[in-house]
């Protein structure tokens, strides 16, 4: 992700007649590879479980292939200069997620999630195509910053009107469909943060009173800072009410990262961390739901010692441990022991058990690569809004992967969240496709306008 070498190379490149290769052919080849890998995984599950190739293999491969091909065509036609990596990575992760969910469906007959997930993936890819085709220039979004934030807050507050599910009030149920509006809100908030910070970053960085003796810490004026902190407090407040701490943590991290990138002030990080720890302690103290999560994290086997059997986190750790280095093989693990969230929050445990540390590392590196391409699009972009937008979207992915993967592997307390593309969950898949579409859009404009000079 640190590409100092590249920058030097770019700086030395001649100033004229430079055009980055488009590499659409490579993108197509990688997509074909990704689809084949997923079909192979699908067949491997069937062979391991029943000794036969599952009857739906051709349909599954064709479905995934057609979706990926259509997305590729959209990119080829409307974003020809875009980075060739994000789309194949998204296809591979989404396809792998479908394989894992299909595999877990075999353990829960009567409760099949893979077909629904395929439908939502189709919706997601459709949204991807629409964004790539209809959004000609990402800067258009800057104009709708306040529309975005109002919509985001509306979406965040909506689930309060609906009953809680498993302790979190984050779902909206309409006509048999469950939607998690908070998922969409994060993209809208990223757009708003990017637009607002792009417009006000100088004021935030340099204006305002200086506190502290040696003028190290400088506070911006309330006029500049006020709106953004208000928005942030509102969103976090809503989330605490809804008990969705994963998303709350995500928003907070996104806010701090973008503020730091926009202003370059380390003081923001200090203030951010201070606020975060205060908030974490307060919430952990007051909210029993969170308090129990922290207790589980510190003592994952407490329920076993108490004779109540392993809890979800303990089961998840057992899953990862069983996988070892090479895994048990697709279809041959017992991650279903985790229970009701095996297909959603804990889907990574199935990957860890059946693909082992090798497969898990590959998945982590795919996410890392996706994030890196997002950051790279931000670096290559000239327009501050575009830069912040790309960084914000990439950071959403990075933070989300860290929060949920760290949670299910016992690195940090568990907060309910979906592994991007991998986990069961319609809203999540659709949102992540939208994120990839915006990254494609930003990278297309960044590489299209590239003139051989490094970005400022």
């Amino acid at each position: 992700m640190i590409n100092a070498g590249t920058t030097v190379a770019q700086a030395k490149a001649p100033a004229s007649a430079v055009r980055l290769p488009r590499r659409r052919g490579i993108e197509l080849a990688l997509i074909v590879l990704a689809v084949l890998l997923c079909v192979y995984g699908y067949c491997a599950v069937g062979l391991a479980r029943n000794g036969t190739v599952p009857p739906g293999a051709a349909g599954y491969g064709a479905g995934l292939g057609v979706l990926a091909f259509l997305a590729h065509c959209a990119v080829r036609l409307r974003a020809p200069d875009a980075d060739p990596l994000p789309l194949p990575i998204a296809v591979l992760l989404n396809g792998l997620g479908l394989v894992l969910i299909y595999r877990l469906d075999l353990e829960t007959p009567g409760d099949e999630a893979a077909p629904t997930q395929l439908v939502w993936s189709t919706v997601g890819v459709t949204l991807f195509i629409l964004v790539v085709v209809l959004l000609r220039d990402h800067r258009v979004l800057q104009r709708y910053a306040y529309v975005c934030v109002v919509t985001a807050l509306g979406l965040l507050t909506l689930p309060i009107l609906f009953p809680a599910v498993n302790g979190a009030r984050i779902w909206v149920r309409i006509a048999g469909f469950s939607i998690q509006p908070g998922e969409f809100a994060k993209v809208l908030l990223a757009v708003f943060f990017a637009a607002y910070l792009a417009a006000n970053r100088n004021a935030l960085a340099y204006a305002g009173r200086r506190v502290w003796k040696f003028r190290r810490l400088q506070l911006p004026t309330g006029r500049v800072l006020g709106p953004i902190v208000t928005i942030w407090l509102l969103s976090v407040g809503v989330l605490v009410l809804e008990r969705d701490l994963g998303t709350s943590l995500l928003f907070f991290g996104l806010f701090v990262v973008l503020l730091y990138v926009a202003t370059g002030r380390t003081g923001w990080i200090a203030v951010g961390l201070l606020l975060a720890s205060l908030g974490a302690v307060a919430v952990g103290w007051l909210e029993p739901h969170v308090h129990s999560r922290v207790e589980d994290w510190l003592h994952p086997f407490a329920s076993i010692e108490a004779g109540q059997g392993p809890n979800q986190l303990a089961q998840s750790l057992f899953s990862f441990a069983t996988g070892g280095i090479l895994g048990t093989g697709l279809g041959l693990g017992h991650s279903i022991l985790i229970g009701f969230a095996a297909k959603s929050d804990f889907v990574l445990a199935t990957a860890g058990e059946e693909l082992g540390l090798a497969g898990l590392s590959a998945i982590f590196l795919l996410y890392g690569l996706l994030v890196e391409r997002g950051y790279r699009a931000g670096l290559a972009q000239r327009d501050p809004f575009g830069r912040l937008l790309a960084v914000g979207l990439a950071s959403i992915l990075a933070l989300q992967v860290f929060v949920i993967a760290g949670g299910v592997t016992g690195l940090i307390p568990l907060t309910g969240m979906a592994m991007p593309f991998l986990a069961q969950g319609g809203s999540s898949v659709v949102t992540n496709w939208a994120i990839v579409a915006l990254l494609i859009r930003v990278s297309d404009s960044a590489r299209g306008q590239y003139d051989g000079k490094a970005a400022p």
Partner: protein
Amino acid sequence: MTRYIRHAAVFCALLLASLLANAARIQVVQAGSYDDNPANRRQTIARYHEPRGDILVGGRPVTGSRDSGGQLRYERSYENGPLYAPVTGFASQLYGTTFLEHAEDDVLSGTDPMLSPFPLWNDLTRARADGGDVVTTLDRGAQQAAYEGLGARKGAVAAIEPSTGRILALVSTPSYDPAVLSGNGSAVKRSWSRLIGDRDKPMLNRAARQTYPPGSTFKVVTAAAALDAGVITDLDEPTDSPAPYTLPGTTTSLTNEGEGCEDAPLRAAFEWSCNTVFAKLGADVGVADMTATAQGFGFNDTALRIPFSVARSTFDTSVDRAQLALSSIGQYNTRATPLQMAMVSAAVANGGQLRAPYLVERTTTDAGATLATAGSRPVRQVMRPSTAVRMKELMEGVVTEGTGGNAAIPGARVGGKTGTAQHGIGNAGVPYAWFVSWAQAEDDMEPKVAVAVVVEDGSADRGEISGGGVAAPIARAVMEAVLTS
């Protein structure tokens, strides 16, 4: 801004690196301890994923596996469950394993390293070998005869081939069907609590895991000790023992059930089971020689495995002369398992040599290739061969002349000893009827079978006769089954 974007990127890279490091910690460093956590069901699931190997009696399996289709997939089934329960034990998803199912679990469940094609192969491939089979030494006919002989009564039978130590029959009644404990449904839990709560203790292996006062059958040990120690040199010479006999150092006097024991020679005393004669003999032999002989037969041995462990039979070694006298007629602290008493009889029948008893002839792979055989068992010279010859004579006398007439088999040499053991406070309990014996067909070179039978509800009325009346016919049926097979 570029600089700060790079910083943020480094931050994301650190997050990713910590995820990878943590995954390696769980999946490699700590994997072992998580795998072995008893709350982790995976080992149990793997264990029941394949059908279990079988336990074979007379070349045919007495166990089977039934596919339940559940998470713990294969459940154990048993043919003639109650008949073989003291040998097979049970294999239950909920309550674990016992007896051979437990002792040979590695082979039966397929985890024995010998079952994998190459060393470490199964560790590498995560495969589990097909369960192997366990071939027992049991004789179907003898087992059946013993079980039918005991019938509705509470008791146990152990039969051994004297020359090898192979266990030919091991029966305990009342018994139970281990099949009701396989699986993990609520029916299994109900069966378990019913069996555990049963006052007759059907799951108790009375042949190997329960000790009884051996009563007069212990006189075989005392007689052997007296002959070996030279206290008796002539079987027909009067023994200079009074009747009743006052226990040394006390005023308690010991009587006999029958008449004619005063000064009786050893042969007559053995045939008619004179308590006075044998109590005095034990006291005359002394603690050291009595202990040596009893321990030679296997008393006080905690290490006996057949391959599951056998309850320790006891002969108290810190006793005064009165206690020694009582110990020598199988009372006081003397206790024996039926298997132990079968070993006593087998040692006599085998010329004074005792072979350690065993139940598993060999283990094989699923395809029938031998994994391990019982091999030669340790031999112990329990008494001098000349003593053994005279002991056989004495035991044959019991069957031809004395209390053991019910064990006689036409056309075979049969030796035996009856016993009735008093027990309970003030001997209030219903006495145990014992019979230990061996048999040799006319055209055989050596005795083919040694048997011990105990019946818990032997009649209290006629002392020695109950051993001969209740237990001897069962022993005869078992011996006949072996001799004719």
